Every structure is written in C-alpha cells, then in structure tokens.
C-alpha cells in the first residue's frame, strides 16, 4: 500500500529540471509561460527544481550543440531514478533550422533514451502540458516496473 502511495504521489508531484542545449530561448520562455497564471502547471504539481538532484523530468530545449552535449548528458545523469526525459520543441528532435550546422550534434535521441517528444517551434503551452502529463505517466510506469523487479 505504501508502495502504491508513493507511485500515486509520483504522478502528482513531478518536478522539472530545464536544460537549455543551445536553444533560441523561444521554448524556454514558453516553458516558463506554462507555469505562469494563465496555464498554471503548478495545479498539477509541476514545479521547476533548481538542481537536477531533485528533478523527476528533464526538459531539454535546443538543438544540442557540440558545446552543450557533454553538459547535457552529465546533468541528465545526475537526475536520480526514476526519471523521464522530455524534449521540447523541434530542435532536440531534428535540429530544426540548425540542422546540418557543424556545431549541432543532435538529435538528442542519438545519445539517451528520450521518453517524450513535444514537437513545434515553439510548442503551444497546451502541447507542453500534454507532453509533461505523458511523461508523468511514464514516470509512474517506470516506478511500478522498478517496484515489480
């Protein structure tokens, strides 16, 4: 029962850690917009954490530049299990307009297992919330799977 409580709670209190992997800041602003009064993601328990140690969901924006790649990976690795990786915007998925640049290493899924992709340039807040909700579900699943083993 205690276990179930924890799994339930995991679905209700996902904390975000936001990594900017060379983004144009459009997605970053949009992510913040999700938390402001109009869309208020906090009503679902979403909260921006200051340190990856406290996060459940990592939100990556930007095309993953050469400069940022090792840092992104390092920060992701420092998030404790169970964790979910969400890419926000088209950049981390395809490179978007930066594709083909010498300094772009993306997509992110080349390096880590990405759980949710939220496409768009930039994605609408509704889409972001939807994506996060999906990620939360995956988080709960991960927790349950880990619990069974």
């Amino acid at each position, binding site marked *: 029962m*205690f276990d179930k409580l924890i799994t339930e709670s995991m679905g209700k209190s996902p904390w975000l850690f936001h990594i900017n992997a060379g983004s144009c800041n459009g997605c970053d602003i949009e992510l913040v917009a999700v938390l402001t009064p109009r869309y208020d993601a906090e009503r679902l328990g979403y909260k921006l954490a200051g340190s990856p*140690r406290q996060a459940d969901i990592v939100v990556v924006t930007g095309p993953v530049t050469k400069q940022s790649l090792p840092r*992104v990976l*390092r*920060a*992701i*690795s*420092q998030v404790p299990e169970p964790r979910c990786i969400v890419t926000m915007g088209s950049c981390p998925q395809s490179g978007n307009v930066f594709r083909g640049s010498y300094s772009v290493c993306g997509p992110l899924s080349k390096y880590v*297992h990405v759980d949710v992709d939220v496409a768009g340039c930039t994605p609408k807040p509704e889409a972001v919330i939807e994506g996060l909700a999906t990620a939360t579900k995956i988080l709960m699943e991960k927790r349950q799977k880990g619990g069974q083993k």
Partner: protein
Amino acid sequence: MSMLQHFPICAIMAYFLGAFLIVVFGRNRALRNLIGFLSTATPLCLLTALVKPVLQGSDVIAYWMGSRVPAGGYAIGIALEVDALGLFFGLLIATAVFVAMIYSFSYMSHDDNEPQYYTLFLMLCGGVMGFVLSGDLFNMFIMIEILTFAAVALTAFRNTANGALEAAFKYLVVGCIGSSCILAGTIMLYAQAHTLNFAQLAAFLPGNLNTATVVAYALLFIGFCTKAFIVPFHPLAADAHGAAPAPVSVLISGVLTKSGLYGIIRLTYILFRTMNLGTVQFWLVFLGSVSMFVCVTMALAQHDFKRLLAFHSISQIGYVLTAAGLATALGVSSGLYHAMNHTLFKGLLFLCAGAVLHETGTTDLGKLGGLSKKMPQTTVLFLVGAFSISGIPPFNGFASKWMIYQATYQKAVESGNIGFLFATIVALVTSTLTLASFVKVTQSVFFGQLPKEYENVKEVSFGMRLAMGILALLCILTGLFPGFVTTYLTEPAARAVFGANNYINAMLGTGYAQNFGLVDALPVSFQAAGVWSPISWLCLLMIMLLAVAIVAVSSKYDQVSALAKTAAAAEAAEAKAGPRYGSGALAEGKYELFFGGEESVFSQVGGDDLFWGFKHNWRHYFSFMHELHSGIVNDYALWAVVALALAMLYAMIIL
C-alpha cells in the same frame, strides 16, 4: 587528614620535580615520556583524592611550608591554602595538563629539543598549579613569573614558525608590564597590611579600604587581566596561540587564562569583598561583555585556524568574567561551570587544530578543505568541540551558557539595572556569532572539497586521538549531567567564593575572622540554578533512534536502488544494441557534484568571505578593528598602560 594536608604541595612539586628530572634524564625518549606521564598523572590523582573532603565536606586545607604556623595572629610563613575554589581550578588544570601531555607524546615527536619542551611544559604546569593553590600573595607573583616565562619560551619554541618569536616578544613585554603591576599591587597591600598572607589580608582589608588599597586592587586586577587576556590584552593571546604548538595552546587557553580568572575572583570576592560591589560588578560585567563581543567579531575576520580559536578562547573567557562578575551565587556558579567547559572544549578544539597542522602542515583556512574524508575521527571530535563552544544542546557549553543567561537576566531584574540586560543580549548574540564562525571552520577545513595536495593525508595517531577523545567525552558528560556538575563541583566552589570567613578561620585558627568583626559578604542561594530535566534529552535520543530505525526499515523494502540498477542495465543494453555515441556516457558523472552541467572542478568555498552579508554591514567596524590590531608591540603596551590608568582612576572614583 594529616596525610591529605601534604597533597597540595606534592601536587605542585610533582610538576617541578618532573621538569628537573627531564632535564637530567631527558635524552632517553621512553624515560622522558614516563617521567612526563607520571608527573602529570600524580597531581591529578592527588587532587582527586582531595575532592571528598574539600568539595563535598567544604574543608579548607591549610599547609604551612616548613611548619611555620602563624603566631599571635600573624602569618609569617609561606602557606598553601586549598579551598573549594582553588581545588576546582586545580582539578581543571591537572586534567587539561594531563591530556595535553598525552597528546604531546605523539605530536611533538618530530620536533627537536624535546627535553627542553617537556621541561618548559612542566614548569608552566607547576607555575599555574602553584598559583591556584597558593595562599600567599607574593608566592602567587613568583608563580606568575614562572608561568609567564615558561609560556613565553613555549610560544617561541618553534621559532622557525611564522611569527613565533614576534608573538613571544609581544607576550613578554605586555606580560611583564602585567607582572610588574601585580608586584606593585602586592607591595602596596603589604605596606598597608604588613602581611602577604591571603587569609590575613582578607581579614584586614574589608575594614581598611583606602586609596592605596584600592589602587592596589586596580594594579592587581590589571595584572590578572593580562594573564587572562581580557580585552585589551587579547591580541597577545591570538599571537601566542597562532605560533605555539597545539598542546601549549591548550595550556595557554585552558590553564593560563584560568589562573588569571582565579586571581580576579579571589581578589574581588575574598580580599576586596566590602568594596562598592555594585560598581565593581558593573566593571567586571562590562569588561566581560566587551571581551565577548570584540573577540568573537575578531574571530570572524580571521583566516588562520588557530588564531581564530584563540580569539574565541578570549570570547569565552569574557563569558566567564561576565558571569563571575555578577556577585550572585548563580552567576559565580555558572561562571565557574563555563570556565570548566572552556578548558574542555577549547582544549579539544586546539588539539584538533594541532591534528590538522600535524597532518597537513598548515592552518590556513583558505588552503584546507575536505579533510573529513581523510580524518573522520578528528572531524567528529572537532564537531563535538564546535557544538560545545557554540552552546548547542545537549553539549556542555549549552548548560553553562544557559545558566549565564539566567544569571545575567536575573541580576538585571533584581538590580533594576538595564546594563546587565545588555550583557544577556550580548551573550546570546555572541553565542550565535560563535556558531557562525565554527560553521566557517567546519566548512573550510573539514567539509567542502579536498585539495589535491592533501590526497595522502592520514588520520592522526592513536595517542592524539585518545587525548582528544578524553576531552570530547568530558564535554558530552558534563553537558548531559549538568545537575551533577553544579552540585558537586561549581556550587561548593561558588560557596567558597562567598565564604571568606571559612577561608580565614581555616588558615589562622577558628574565631579569627570574627575577631575582626566580619560577616559573610553575601548569602548564597541556589534556587534559580535548577537545570532542566534530563528526560527531555532522553526523548531527543529516542526520537533520533526512532528516525534512524524508520529509515533502516524503510530502506529494507526499498525498490529504488533496484530501479536504478535496472535502469542502468537497460541503458547499457541499449547502448550496446544501438549505435550510440559514447556508450555509458550517462553513468559517468552521476556521483559527481552538480556544477551546472560542467565537469566538476576544484572550487572550495573558503572561509574568508563566507559571511559576506554580515561583514558588509559591519565593514566600518571591521576595518577599524583591523587597524586597531596593528601588531606593533608599542600599541599593545599603550593599551595596557591606558587600561591601567583607567582602572586606577575608576577604582579611586568608586571608593
């Protein structure tokens, strides 16, 4: 009783004899250590044997050297007199000295001139012990000279260390001014009373206060202040501690300052107990509060481990002086309690600083860091000391500080003098500032990141850990059983402080004090000295255990680590299957520090500007203080002279 009578002189002589024997036989290490051990263990045993009659039975042991007992009410010979107050300080000293000696065996083993070190060490101990057990003013002066010389020589012992010689010279100059004050004061008292015996002076003076005796009080007071390093003599302590070897620091802070305090208490409450006590109290409390605050702020500005500890030492002495100056039973009792605690925790902290110096070769807070991984036991011991001095319950500093707050506040309410209230507030704030500066030390020495050059640092040897362990244990015990300490140690001593008649009669025969028509200065009441019930601490312990148990149980059913493992395995499998960049790249940085995603580099947050937010607001004060502590010996001498002049002026005004 007849046997016990010889114990005090034996205790003193054991040190001096040891010093002599080490000069003769000191070349052999084993023999030297044996002599050192025996000559510090013997006085401890002898004085412990006196606990029962003196502290519990409130006997006073008078010992006349060469059996020159007083004739016709005149004390001719040199006397030792051990009352509860003297024995209390004697026990403190014997304990601290014993521990410091154990520590020295390993700590000093790499120095040359070891025999000289032990000789001076034992001379210092003998001097202090002679001082507190003496019943004769001139004898006290002699002992003060012995201990000053020994302390100066020990300060300069590692004369290649930065500033050791300089510190020794400054200490010598100001210390000699203090000694001369004591001598002059002694002589002025002699001129009036024609006796040097404490008991006889105590009987004579109350009825015969005049300008000369009051000036003598000021002179003696300033002299004892230089020994206790009360403000304005605190820079000397800082310099001396910074340069001296750690066990000597223990002696200087735990033992030498106590002798000064003992002198002040004896002087004020036994000899000059009929002076205008209200104003004298105010004076003592004022000096104590100033010492407290000035030294703790000076400590915040330090970046050398031992120098910082030295300033704290004086800050705590300020507490003792404040409490002892209240002239209430509770005040004196709490002051003595804090004096005892000061010896214990300050000794512990200095020994920890010594351990750090021994292993790393530096005490610069900016250079150290992360030692807790290399020296875990020293860290724990240091934390015990740090919590004790900051007055965190349930360590001993809390018990005594709590009593001091009660005492000062009670005094403020009783006398209606808002100045004493000020002392309470200063004491409380100082306590927090103390905590702050020990957080700084903990952060920049034991926690944080380990610099590369200290990768090979090891835990200190068993002997040193044993010495620190004894003190840490005492810190905890005296904190957990404050009722025991107050009942059996400090209250008898406080009673002795106010029992001048008892003191006089024991020395000069029953009825002598009444001959001079004296009454006990102050009634003794310990009603307010009750300390909280220990059940609360048991509860704390229980809750702690409960919390630990809950965690232990819950981690048994913990699936998280399993989860992490499976996730890592899946990651690895995926990395193997798909053409991924840098397989296993994710696991790499997991257990490193978070640096905003950067690879972790060495970036220790040092102690220097840790409390910037505080210092910024006080920047004018700090720069003023920095300029004031100029390090020029003339300035320090000037302070001494000014203090002397003010003390004499004040004494004459209040007469």
